[in-house]
């Protein structure tokens, strides 16, 4: 590679990795919501947790091109681990329990990743769906441990770091979830802009060529799948800790589909896609469930169908003005990201 070109590439990549004013603004707004939107903290907590879950799906779908229909497996697994840790007082302190739950989920992700590596998109769909269904069946059968179909009840969460008690209005829960989301986001951001993250994108673009330039495709996919499973596990654990409840619902196909929809609404392949998508999705769900408590799924389905028929590219471009602004303010181009 010639000297100036190498410098250009280096400069471009460094520019991509730098924090942008709008990103900082986004997180400042999120920070402000802790103090300003105090009566909305319950739904905001849900959004933050869902955003973390969507972020984890983006890591495998948007950045690595693995199509999954069973990502809820790791979400639900993390939720149950956190619930059991708290219920039996094994690890009472929430933050530590959160980390342990995340690690447990990533171990599960590591083990199952070898199944996911095999075959085409179709096989992956079946395997990921199968894994989540197996877990659901296990959780259902082990009712002495998980409470079966009734869900895991009687969880009491110890004060955060031994200091802050979880309150009824969800103030502590929201602050906690938001901080976890931010920390995990920063890590993910670091990850996708690292050489490792770039190699993942090359794998997604063309596995054959990526292998030809010396990237061990399978090892990369196993690694990112493990990390993403850990992320999903932490999201699940957060849900258990903030709601003091874990249920089979956390493992269900509907949850996997919901998170896929949220991610696609926001746009795959860039980190804010999951976050923005979750906000839109949760608000929409809340609104629809308000009008038609029983049949809101119909409208969610309709949104999906329209989304595909109109075209995700065109629809996903509602973020384009923002990204255009990003490009102008920062005087560097943001490449158009595309879900494929």
């Amino acid at each position, binding site marked *: 590679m010639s000297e100036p070109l190498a410098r250009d590439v280096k400069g471009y990549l460094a520019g991509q990795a730098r924090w942008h004013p709008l990103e900082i603004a986004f997180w400042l707004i999120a920070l402000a919501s802790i103090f300003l939107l105090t009566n909305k903290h319950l739904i905001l907590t849900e959004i933050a947790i869902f955003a973390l879950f969507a972020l984890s799906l983006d890591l495998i779908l948007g950045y690595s091109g693995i199509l999954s229909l069973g990502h809820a497996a790791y979400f639900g697994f993390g939720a149950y681990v956190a619930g059991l840790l708290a219920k039996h007082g094994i690890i009472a302190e929430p933050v530590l329990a959160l980390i342990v739950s995340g690690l447990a989920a990533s171990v599960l992700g590591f083990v199952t990743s070898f199944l996911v590596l095999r075959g085409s998109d179709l*096989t992956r769909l079946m395997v990921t769906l199968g894994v989540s269904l197996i877990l659901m069946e296990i959780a259902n059968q082990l009712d002495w441990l998980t409470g079966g179909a009734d869900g895991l009840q009687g969880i009491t969460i110890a004060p955060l770091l031994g200091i802050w008690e979880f309150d009824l209005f969800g103030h502590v829960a929201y602050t906690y979830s938001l901080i976890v989301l931010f920390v995990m986001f920063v890590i993910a951001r670091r990850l996708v802009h690292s050489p490792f993250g770039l190699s993942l994108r090359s794998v997604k673009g063309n596995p054959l060529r990526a292998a030809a330039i010396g990237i061990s495709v399978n090892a990369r996919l196993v690694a990112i799948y493990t990390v993403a499973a850990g992320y999903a596990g932490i999201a699940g654990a957060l849900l258990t800790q903030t709601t003091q409840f874990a249920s089979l619902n956390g493992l269900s196909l509907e949850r996997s589909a919901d998170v896929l929809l949220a991610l696609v609404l926001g746009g795959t392949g860039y980190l804010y896609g999951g976050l923005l998508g979750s906000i839109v999705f949760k608000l929409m769900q809340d609104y629809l469930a308000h009008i038609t408590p029983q049949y809101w799924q119909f409208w969610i*389905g309709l949104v999906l*169908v329209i989304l595909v028929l109109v075209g995700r590219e065109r629809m996903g471009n509602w973020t384009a003005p923002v990204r255009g602004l990003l490009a102008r303010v920062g005087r560097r181009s943001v490449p158009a990201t595309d879900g494929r």
Partner: protein
Amino acid sequence: MLTILFDGIAYGMLLFVLACGLAVTLGLMNFVNLAHGAFAMAGGYITLVLVNRMGWPFFAALPIAFVATAAIGALFERTLYVHVYAKSHLDQVLFTIGLVFMSVAAVDYTMGSQQQYIQLPEALRGQIDVFGIGVGRYRLLIIAICGLLTVALQLILTRSRFGSRLRAAVDDPRVASGLGIHVGGVFAVTFAFGSGLAGLGGALGAEILGLDPIFPLKFMIYFLIVVTVGGTSSITGPFLASLLLGIGDVAGKYYVPKFGAFVIYTIMIVVLIWRPQGLFARGTSR
């Protein structure tokens, strides 16, 4: 023991009729259609309404279920699916999942969420003894119908002009259309026929599988397993896979009720590790 085998075969045959339409769209046309179960559900509910509410005889309702579901399939194919063929797998998954959600909510709204059963004619209830084995009459009927269908399908695919057109269109759409085959039309007919079969399967299977609004979600994994395990090269692959799955599932649920549901998943994982392209796939991957 033999009764279980018999039930398993009936169950497997049923799965095959339900899933073989999917084997064609998903396997041959490379279109991920997760909404296939919705067509089966449509067939089931059409039969239910005809038999239970309007008092039609069961055997008259079956062909109607087939024709009506095929018509719905053709309508959807021409208006919606045709726009999604060329899109990515992610888009296809989103689109068909959306359809599933809509169908689930729509059926829940119109028919209620409880499980429903179709009233069978008196002649089909109970068991008869064949060489000392208790054989359910209804299951015997299923095996007869599904067996005939399988033979017919195999003959159509391998012997008829339409079958060779379909195989040509699947192997290489461009060359096929260059030879004057109307590829879009062939696909539309195939899709409609597959949906019709699913509808017929849903109508026949309501007694065994149960019929409720979440049917498409519940059996999605079964269909996927049949297609992926069976491979996509022929109709015999999915057929054998369905039988394997049916017998495995029935036997598992009978012998180890607590872990019966795991049997099919275990089969799936073992097959996948052993033969990632499916049990009966052709040598090259597509």
